[in-house]
């Protein structure tokens, strides 16, 4: 398994936000990680990334317990996060954004080097010298996705990537995420309020409510069930 959580419990200070969260994902598998605001999705992602220290449970990445590793060590292993709404360096140009992240994350034989990124998103190559913060929302999100996958990502976590994007852009971006996951055996955890778009590319659906998993199944099972009652 690429990523496995065993009875994860985590939160902020003394306040526990998620408890008894367990699931495991195979390489290339895409998980739609759903739930209402405050259900504990982002807390779970932050715990996997190392930004929050779990109070109980285990986080296994490719069989290795990464619960005590630093954020930098987890990134080096291939755990990546596309954060909600702030995934670029707005004061730097597109080329500078790509080059600073590549300098720290792209080594020999990397899955995605700088030319691969410009091939995947040609519009970024055209806008190389543009200040990133002045680009459109869609272009900024393409850049954010590029920064998240530079190097060798093995598990990509996307936190509300569709916020502020036009529906056709969301669909195109999700298709690109799916293509990348399937072609490079990269696992993805997709936290998303746009349930329909997320379920279109997902292999599995987990719904959180009040810090606990209340549904775990494939998209067809989710659609067949009384889906919104889990919210």
């Amino acid at each position, binding site marked *: 398994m690429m990523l496995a959580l065993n009875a994860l419990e985590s939160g902020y200070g003394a306040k526990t936000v998620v408890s008894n969260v367990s699931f495991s994902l195979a390489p290339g598998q895409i998980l739609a990680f759903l739930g209402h605001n405050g259900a504990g999705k982002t807390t779970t992602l932050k715990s996997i990334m190392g930004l929050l220290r779990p109070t109980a449970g285990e986080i296994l990445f490719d069989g290795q317990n990464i619960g005590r590793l630093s954020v930098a060590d987890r990134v080096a292993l291939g755990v990546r996060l596309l954060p909600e709404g702030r995934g670029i360096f707005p004061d730097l140009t597109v080329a500078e954004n790509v080059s600073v*992240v590549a300098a720290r994350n792209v080594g020999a034989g990397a899955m995605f080097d700088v030319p691969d990124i410009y091939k995947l998103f040609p519009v970024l190559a055209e806008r190389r010298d543009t200040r990133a913060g002045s680009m459109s929302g869609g272009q900024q999100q393409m850049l954010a996705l590029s920064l998240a996958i530079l190097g060798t990502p093995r598990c990509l976590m996307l936190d509300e990537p569709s916020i502020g994007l036009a529906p056709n852009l969301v669909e195109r971006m999700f298709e690109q995420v799916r293509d990348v996951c399937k072609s490079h055996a990269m696992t993805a955890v997709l936290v998303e309020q746009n349930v329909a778009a997320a379920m279109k590319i997902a292999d599995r659906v987990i719904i959180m409510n009040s810090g606990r998993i209340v549904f775990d199944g494939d998209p067809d099972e989710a659609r067949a069930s009384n889906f919104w009652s889990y919210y």
Partner: protein
Amino acid sequence: MLALQLLCNGIVTGCALGIVAVSFSLVYATTKIFHVAHAGVYTMSGYVAWSLLRHGFPAPIAFVGAIAAATALGALIQGVLYARLERRRATHLVVLIASLGTLAVIQNILAAVFTANILQFELPWGSQVFHLGGNVRLTMTQLLTVLVNVAAYGGVMWFSHGTILGKQIRAVASNPFLAEIVRLQPRRVHIYVMAIASALVCLPGILVPLDFGLQPYNGVTPLLTATIAMIAGGVGSITGAFVLAIVITELQNMSLLFIPGEWSIGVTFFIFVVFMLFRPTGLFAAAR
């Protein structure tokens, strides 16, 4: 003629304060720490250069020694003090108090070792005078102050935009959260920034006392002007900080033509307050 001489003097002091402002701005934009102890590093560097010269070292060695000492002190303040406070989630106010405390400690150590009196700090060739025409004169020290600090400004611009470490520093300033999750290691970058800023502030820290002498409490007024230049120039803008430091110093100098000297600082800062009312984000806010 007096006006021209005041203008030239303003450029000399302005260039020196420009580098104090640029270095302070680098630290503030990247770490969000109001690094008041920077004034202590500025003052200490002059004393280290003075001591090395007195012990018979040639000027270049004394200057390099002072830069090395300041670099180490800056990195130490960040690594031992600020980073620990950040790990313990200290508020900005607590960090500011710690910085003020560090400044007081540095000043007191300097006063204890070298006394609080003004020390004359001169180089044999420093008072060589150049006549620029029309009775306007500049000493070798003043000329060197302009050249070194303008070159330092150019160097910082090139470093920030032309090197990977410079871009990483700007990236950390632009989005520290993202910097953490793409492995730019912001805490390590903060130490580099503090070391670089401390090395930079050494240049005016050595050159200005060559003109005005050394005193343990010398750093506070330049830092005040530098802070205002940083804010009026637009936080994070290197050019803004440098240019505004020169403008503020020129305002102070030229105001001497119209008002008594004791009013010049008050009038300059009044103009600054009015300016900020109309442009609170600073003059160069968008042009980073």
